[in-house]
Each structure stands twice: as structure tokens, then as C-alpha cells.
């Protein structure tokens, strides 16, 4: 199987021929940063188009179909429009925090995006506490959302931000506990190690029932963390106009929009890494020919296909269900998901021991 580490090592050694160590490191940092930001933006544009198409199909419509063939350039046109728009200054708002908030939201999701293993050898940084890092950094976004709500000096944004805080902090728990059950199964928190361990069979099959329960709970809790679908209370448009980003305009709103879609991608990518084997092809023990054939499909394709599947599940849920009330939302978390998750870890420990 082709490993991207060959390519990155070749780039590293050829750079070292030209310049000293410090400059090599600097050039590599810049390259990685540019790569991450470009892929971040491009993936978000693709995701927005996919969301609009799938949403339209589920409502028996055609979706965007005017710009380019099948409306493929629609989101590109939207991006140009949003870049050209005026940024409105809100009267009597906290100017500094108002501007800072959108950057914090996007910072949290870029930091998480950078640590994902995209393919074999294609991972920016491989911590030995990878799962911890992902959970810690992905919950940075709530700070930005609270700041946005507070700094805009408006009742809608304030209520939206408070709801969002309650929701994100509660669902963070079952998110972490669901991932913890996989950590119990694998015995490591390093993402590359977790993916390697799934080489003979993916964790969702290997872990029997508890892994499946953990997968479902992680998808629900992760979906709630992206502030979308039936859990979109923070931006409930019928009550709060647009929730915490009511007062934002132009590219500042674009940052929130981008971060929302990339959080969806990140949740799907973590789910596919932890439960569906990440970039690891489908291997069935004993079927050597089948395993060899599966290895011919590049690892990036495997990763993107699994992530795409998880994203489709999220879109499906979003366009099927009505919005929950705040008490129903918290009841679902504290009375159902949390106890089930705690019990699930116990079950997983039993599976590991036996």
C-alpha cells in the first residue's frame, strides 16, 4: 500500500539539501499550514454543496442547478459573494471580542482538522494522547460561540449562546465517554496506533455490541456538538433569528458558516477513524485474496468514503427530524445517553476481559 510518508520524507530530504535545518523547518511549517487551510476551505465548499443537494433531494427538489453543470460552481460563487460583502459594525458592541469570536470558532476546528489521519502516513502530528487532543481542541469552539453571543450586545445572540453553552458542555460528556470505550478496547490513545489495530477488523465489528452502541451515541452527541439538525437550538431561526451569529455579516459570518460545516466533517472523520477503521481498508481475517484486492484502493479514498458515509448519516438525520425543545435536549443527554454510555463502558471492559 502506498504510504504518504515516502513523499513527505522525500520533500524533507530534498529541502535539507538546499537550506539549513531551521529554514527547512520553517518552509515545511508554511507548506503544511497552506495545505491545511486550502483543504479546509475546499472541503467546506464541497460539503456546503453536498448538503444543499441532499437536503433538496430529501424534500423532492433538485437543489442548486443554475451555476455550472448540475450547479457544481454554486458554492464557489457564494464564496466570492460573501468575500465581497460589507462587514457591518454593530453599534455599542464590544468591538474587539466581537471580531475575536469568529476567529476562535474557526481556530478550534482548524486545530482539530490538522490532527486527523487522512491517509497512510498523511498526518500532520501524531500525539500519543491523540484522542484527548481532539476532544480538548474541538470543544474550544464553545468559547467562541459564548463570546460571539456576549459581544454582539443583543438578546437573540445572548440566549443563543447560553443555550449553546449548555448544549455543548453536556454533549461533550457522552462524546468523550463513547470515545473512551474505544480507548478501553484498543488500549491506546494514539490515533495512528488505533488505526493500525483495526488492520484485521474494524472496531465496530471487533467490539461486538458495545462498539456499535458507542458508535451510535458518538454520532448523536457529535451531531449535537455541531449545533445542527434537530439540535440547532442555539440558532433556532424561528425563535432567535439566527442565534449567536445574528449580528455577524460578510466574511465574519462566513467563518461561522465554514466552522459549522467543517465541524460536521471533523465529527464524521473522528467517527470513521475510531469506529470504521480510518484509512484502513476492509479486511476480513482468512480471506487473503479479498484483503489483497482491498489494499489496491488508495487509503485516502477509504478515509473519504467512510467520512462521506458518516456525513450522509448526519445530513439524513438533520433533514428528517424536527427541532428539540431545550428540556427535551438536556433530558436526552443526562437521562438517556449518559447512563447508557457509562453502562456501555462497563460492557466494553467485560468484552475486553473475556
Amino acid at each position, binding site marked *: 500500500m502506498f504510504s504518504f510518508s515516502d513523499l513527505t520524507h522525500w520533500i524533507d530530504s530534498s529541502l535539507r539539501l538546499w537550506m539549513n535545518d531551521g529554514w527547512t523547518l520553517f518552509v515545511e511549517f508554511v507548506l503544511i499550514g497552506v495545505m491545511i487551510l486550502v483543504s479546509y476551505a475546499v472541503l467546506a465548499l464541497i460539503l456546503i454543496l453536498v448538503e444543499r443537494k*441532499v437536503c433538496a*433531494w*430529501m*424534500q*423532492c*427538489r*433538485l437543489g442548486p*442547478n443554475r451555476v455550472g453543470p448540475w450547479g457544481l460552481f454554486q458554492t464557489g460563487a457564494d464564496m466570492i459573494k460573501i468575500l465581497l460583502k460589507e462587514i457591518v459594525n454593530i453599534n455599542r458592541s464590544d468591538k474587539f471580542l466581537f471580531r475575536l469570536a469568529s476567529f476562535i470558532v474557526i481556530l478550534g476546528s482548524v486545530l482539530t482538522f490538522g490532527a486527523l489521519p487522512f491517509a497512510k502516513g498523511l498526518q500532520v502530528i501524531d500525539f500519543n494522547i491523540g484522542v484527548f487532543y481532539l476532544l480538548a481542541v474541538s470543544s474550544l469552539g464553545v468559547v467562541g460561540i459564548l463570546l460571539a453571543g456576549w459581544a454582539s450586545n443583543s438578546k437573540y445572540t445572548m440566549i443563543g449562546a447560553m443555550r449553546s453553552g449548555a448544549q455543548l458542555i453536556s454533549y461533550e460528556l457522552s462524546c468523550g465517554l463513547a470515545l473512551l470505550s474505544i480507548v478501553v478496547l484498543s488500549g491506546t490513545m494514539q490515533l495512528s496506533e488505533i488505526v493500525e489495530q483495526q488492520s484485521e477488523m474494524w472496531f465496530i465489528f471487533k467490539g461486538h455490541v458495545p462498539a456499535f452502541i458507542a458508535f451510535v451515541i458518538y454520532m448523536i452527541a457529535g451531531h449535537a456538538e455541531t449545533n445542527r439538525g434537530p439540535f440547532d437550538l442555539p440558532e433556532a431561526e424561528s425563535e432567535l433569528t439566527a442565534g449567536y451569529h445574528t449580528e455577524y455579516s460578510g466574511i465574519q459570518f462566513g467563518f461561522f458558516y465554514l466552522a459549522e460545516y467543517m465541524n460536521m466533517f471533523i465529527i464524521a472523520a473522528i467517527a470513521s477513524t475510531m469506529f470504521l477503521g480510518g484509512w484502513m481498508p476492509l479486511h476480513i481475517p482468512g480471506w487473503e485474496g479479498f484483503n489483497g484486492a482491498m489494499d489496491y484502493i488508495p487509503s485516502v479514498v477509504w478515509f473519504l468514503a467512510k467520512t462521506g458515509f458518516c456525513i450522509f448519516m448526519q445530513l*439524513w*438525520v438533520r*433533514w*428528517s*427530524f424536527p427541532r428539540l425543545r431545550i428540556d427535551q435536549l438536556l433530558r436526552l443527554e443526562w437521562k*438517556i445517553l449518559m447512563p*447508557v454510555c457509562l453502562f456501555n463502558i462497563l460492557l466494553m471492559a467485560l468484552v475486553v476481559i473475556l
Partner: protein
Amino acid sequence: MKIFRYFKDIFLGIYHLLQGMYIAFLNMVRSKITEKYPENRLKKVKMERFRGLLTMPHNAQNEHKCTACGICGINCPNGTIQVISKKVTDETGKEKRVLDRYLYDIGSCTFCALCTISCPQGAIDWSPEFEHTVFTRSKLVKQLNREGSSLEVKPKINNI
């Protein structure tokens, strides 16, 4: 028994959620109802009950059924229809009222269909044509009977 209800609620909830997702999936794979308008404007869409434009059907001999009774104009709430008749004397020397011009102003029509309902002869009907945009208001007034058209002669019913 509260604990049983707790679990029952969870599984029932999951079942109902899956039902909803199944319906959404069915919608997704169904054929779409959106019409791509400018591309398919030449496609004939069958719209039987659609009221696009008032028309007066003429047969092959350029004959219509309107007897110029004016009931449609009386029934019209907006004064959209103007029936202008003329008197002609036929070969027996009897004076007869026939239709001269049937004027229909689409600019004031609300498409209520009271005219077609009240017409005793069935002389006017709706067509599904809907592209009515013009540059001047005077073009909105249309004459429905064609040039040189005459009343369709009904076959005589023999009295017993």
C-alpha cells in the same frame, strides 16, 4: 416497573426515529417534482384544471358557440369581459343578434372562472398558457373571437 418504561421509551423512540428516516430516504430516491422552467418550456405539461388564459374554442369551419348573450360579462366581478354584438338580418327578414367582438382584458382578470361556469353554451374555456408578459397595457386586451368567425349552427332537434 418504572425501569421497564424507561427502556421501553428508549426502544420505542429509536423505532419511531428510524421510521422517520425511512420516509426521508424514500423521498430522496423518488423522482423530483421541480420543473426546470426555461429549459422545458416547450414540453407540454398536462394541466387540466389550470386557469391560464380565457379562450374561445373554434372548430375547423371557423365557427364558435357564443350567442352574444352577455351573461359572462354580467357575471364578471371586474368588468373584464366586454361582449360587443351587432344586429344582422337573415334571409327571412328576421333581425338577429350576433357576436361582433368578444374583448377580454387579462390585466384585470382574477381567473375566478365565473364566466366559464355561467356560460350556457360552453363557448369559452381555459387554456394552460401562462406567459402573459407584454410591454404595454393595451396589448393585454385580447379579442377572443377570430376574424370572420360565425355562430356554430346546432343540428335541429326533432320534436315528437
